[in-house]
């Protein structure tokens, strides 16, 4: 912001006084008109949002139809709305356990990722140490690594430890990309906190753990929230590794969905209902991180 004021001051210096007065008037008018070079600017976001919501609407629409209606007639909204598809999911343990499994490993992964990333991010944001830059880069490469490369070796590694089909196996596997992500996001937020705060606290006699938990963590609370959200999200949307490492006991909902392809054809209604239910968690929490979502995707670097 200071940057902006300087530029404004410089602009004022360059223009003679009367012109400034006239200029400011027209600027004020221009400001009112800004973003409205045409009166139809709202058309673009509106069309785009319609494009985004149409396929989701179609899924929701299908989830309230019976299979006969889905296959039999083409209708833009359910003619005989039914909750049968949702009832199937909520009454069949093999369906709703999928959700429970997913939530268990996602929460485990988020807890692990954020708690190990916090001290590391602090170290990266405050200190220089032997090999810090290389380490930081190496972490990034893991965020970028294709899960397909890791699917088979993960399977063998976790088989060797007897961890296949446990929640912790998926949680640990997802650390591959979530820990680096959490470190990068948290480092971005921590670097925004002036170092003087640390120094003042030490002078006031705070020990490091007390400083870290009592002063520093509240300061970067939003950063921790954003990091946790992104860990949650990327673990929730990932399928390849989660599916490879589980068979029945820890099978995620995403993998359960593929089984609606059965001998009797696809149960489209249940498939749609299951899909709708997987979108809900993301849709619920998105409101809280809406202002940070770009920062999170840019790994804390906007």
């Amino acid at each position: 912001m200071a940057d902006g004021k300087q530029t404004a001051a410089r602009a004022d210096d360059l223009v003679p006084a009367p012109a400034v007065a006239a200029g400011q008037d027209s600027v004020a008018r221009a400001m009112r008109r800004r973003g409205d070079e045409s009166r139809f600017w709202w058309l673009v976001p509106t069309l785009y949002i319609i494009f985004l919501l149409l396929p989701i609407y179609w899924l929701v629409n299908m989830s309230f139809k019976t299979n006969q209606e889905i296959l039999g007639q083409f209708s833009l909204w359910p003619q005989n709305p039914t909750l049968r598809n949702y009832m199937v999911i909520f009454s069949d343990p093999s369906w709703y356990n999928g959700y429970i499994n997913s939530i268990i490993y996602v929460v485990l992964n988020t807890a692990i990722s954020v708690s190990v990333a916090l001290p590391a991010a602090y170290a990266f944001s405050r200190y220089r140490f032997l090999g810090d830059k290389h380490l930081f880069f190496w972490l990034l490469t893991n965020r970028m690594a294709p899960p397909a490369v890791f699917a088979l070796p993960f399977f063998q590694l976790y088989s060797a430890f007897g961890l296949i089909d446990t929640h912790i196996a998926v949680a640990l596997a997802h650390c591959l990309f979530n820990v680096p992500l959490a470190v990068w996001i948290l480092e971005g937020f921590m670097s925004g906190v002036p170092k003087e705060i640390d120094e003042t606290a030490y002078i006031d006699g705070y020990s490091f753990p007390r400083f870290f938990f009592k002063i520093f963590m509240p300061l970067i609370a939003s950063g921790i929230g954003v990091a946790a959200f992104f860990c949650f999200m990327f673990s929730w949307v990932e399928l390849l590794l989660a599916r490879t490492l589980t068979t029945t006991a820890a099978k995620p909902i995403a993998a359960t969905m593929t089984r609606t392809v059965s001998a009797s054809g696809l149960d489209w209604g249940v498939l749609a209902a299951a899909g709708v239910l997987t979108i809900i968690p993301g849709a619920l929490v998105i409101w809280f991180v809406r202002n940070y979502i770009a920062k999170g995707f840019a790994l804390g670097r906007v």
Partner: protein
Amino acid sequence: MEKTWNNKAWFMVLPVLVLVAFSAIIPLMTVVNYSVQDTFGNNEFFWAGTEWYQEMLTSSRFWEAMGRNLIFSFVILAIEIPLGIFIALNMPKSGWGVPVCLVAMALPLLVPWNVVGTIWQVFGRVDIGLLGYAMNALGIDYNYVNDPFDAWVTVIVMDVWHWTSLVVLLCYAGLVSIPDAYYQAAKIDGASRWAIFRYIQLPKMNRVLLIAVLLRFMDSFMIYTEPFVVTGGGPGNSTTFLSIDLVKMAVGQFDLGPAAAMSIIYFLIILLLSWVFYTVMTNYGSEK
């Protein structure tokens, strides 16, 4: 920020190091192992040297998958980046529209990837999907199940649907960081709309755009779940991208040697790209 030199900071990084080493280095070493060995079963392995690498680098199957992947990445970049900038420029700057736009646009980013596949699989079906039905009603012969071109169009539109919002959000974050004074100065100079975009908005979006391009390129380069759900790599091999081919080879056919060699080549490409990404990220941070 001035950072103090302190090697004790290593202790703080240690947990991350152990965890990521367990989930990254050990599996990667397994892959390297397989890539230089051959087996006739029974867990007996023989030294194969660079045989698998040579086989991979001369196999047309690998290069075709690579070619498809490159075409795919470039097409979606060519669509998503300009579209993302255009939408970001037209986003509301204040008022109730901002949170509504942000939330609505971020929604596809939070849909599980296989559900993205399912959504488009359903949406594009000619018998039950709105898109497929509407296309055929308009007299366009569209069927992504049989026609390779339509399959490509579906996969690309799906990716545009899924990820354009990322570009929009990043560009928007860059745009709102421009102080109003810049626009005032431009107005005083009588700058045209194009000049404002070219000399004020674009330079300010430079870095977020680079991040967007690199992220989109890397993520599209390792795309697996969405096309796998929609097309399963078909019809024929027409949408078999590198990841799909790799999983087919490693898990489906259990050709460990070639799959491992392919993994390593794949990983090296990603490593190179990550390095570019890292340089962009950190260099820009230091000049700010």
